[in-house]
């Protein structure tokens, strides 16, 4: 087992493809598709790494990340943030919220795997 990853993403086919790739790589994968109770889901699953989309129904990835960083338990949780918006301003917002790594869509499976391994190693 490589580790435990929670994927919070509202696009079902992205979830399916990422889950497949990560599972094949040896990760235990949990998924969640909305932002409203995302923080509770992270607390419940307590993953080694979190993959977090920015634009989620109910609550943005930035807000979820800010809430998590206020919790001592998740201050150091490695978070890979996914977004379709790659502007500097979005990157700065993610950094201010406490992101560990930022990736813009469309990314490749290999890039996600490489990022997760790097985050797990930190």
């Amino acid at each position, binding site marked *: 087992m490589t580790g435990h990853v929670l994927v919070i993403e509202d*696009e079902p*086919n*992205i979830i*399916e*493809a*990422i889950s*497949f*790739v990560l599972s094949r790589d040896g990760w235990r994968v949990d998924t969640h598709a909305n932002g409203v109770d995302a923080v509770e889901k992270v607390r419940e699953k307590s993953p080694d790494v979190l993959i977090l989309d920015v*634009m989620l129904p109910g609550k943005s990835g930035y807000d979820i990340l800010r809430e998590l960083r206020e919790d001592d338990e998740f201050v150091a949780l490695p978070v890979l943030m996914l977004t*379709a*918006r790659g*502007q500097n301003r979005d990157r700065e917002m993610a950094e201010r919220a406490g992101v560990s790594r930022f990736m813009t*869509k*469309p*990314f*490749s*499976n*290999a890039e996600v795997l490489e990022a997760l391994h790097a985050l797990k190693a930190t």
Partner: protein
Amino acid sequence: MARDTLTGSRIRERRIMRGVKQADLARQAGISASYLNLIEHNRRRIGGKLLLDIASILKVDPILLTQGAEATLIATLREAASAHATTEAELARVDEFAGRFPGWAQLLADSQGRIATLERTVETLTDRMTHDPHLATSLHEMLSTVTAIRSAASILAEPGEIDPDWQSRFHRNIYEDSARLAETSRGLVTYLESEGEAANETGAPQEEVDAVLEEVGHHVPQLETPEGDPEAVAVELGRALSGAAQDLLLAWLGRYAQDAQALPFERFAEEIQTSGPDAAQLAATLGASVTRVMRRLAAMPEEVLPDPVGLAICDASGVLTYRKPLPDFPMPRFGAACPLWPLYRALNRPMVILTQSIIQPGQTQALWAEALAEPIAPPAVNQDPLYEAHMLIRPGVPAAQASAAEVGVSCRICPRDPCPGRREPSILATA
């Protein structure tokens, strides 16, 4: 140096600008050249009748000599200096600069104003692109769909066995996502290029005017009578417009009124019934310029022209200053149009009416284009003319014209490849 001690400098500056010799000015003012020299170097004060005489000789308002550059000019120069703090402009001598070199100072101030205006425009456009909810949502959906397709396709393309159920699931996902991507792209292109509702949400002055003209069907009945007042109509139609758009609208309405007076509605409509919407023929019959006839044709309501005509006008830089698209001939809402349009060929061959049968990608009906570039002002000594081009688009390609030339809307949404006129990749390139 204080500003009010620089009257002499300003006199000297104005004298040199007008090419008047010091001795001649002194003679005309009734003083010695050496005394004028002292004045011009601010070593003698000047006022009263002598100042008025010199101002009169130099054909300048005396206030401009005594008060020098206005406070706003000084303020703008200070603003320019503070905006470029690293250049270390001599702020302490800004009054002297404005007084001694009013032309240069005004040029600098104007440039500063223009920079500020352009910066605001850039901010507005950036804000518009960033915060346009429809655009942002569409792009987000497209990128998410592309990500899903790329990820699934990559899984299928990688070596190694995949469970048939998973294989089938990813095939289905790719199929569904590609259909969704096609739909989203089509919707986005329609949104970007369509007229109508979206035009009312725009921010550029020209687009604001386009939206108003579209709203009234490019026909302004209030200006079809000799009493028509463009200013009153501009106020009526342009209430919700920005200041810049109101100016553009007024200019357009002024031109409309002149066209309407030169080619009165009843007479023009009558002649259309005889000659059809043939701009060259109508111009010859009515003794009017072809471009004026084109504008009048574009302004005709449906009862006169059941098959409406389209019209594009561009300035010498190729920027569209007026657009009336047709369902079979859309025009870009902003940005540059297709360089293959006869409109742009006309700029290369001024004063020649170019005609061509043209068709856009995805359209089924070829259209007849007539384009003409004319100077915007009468000939002037040693001045190259500036041209403006008109292109009238209408149904009714002559039977002898068998094949139509393919032209696009704009590179961004044109699939034609290769194309000698392409200046940027198409977002439809892989569609």
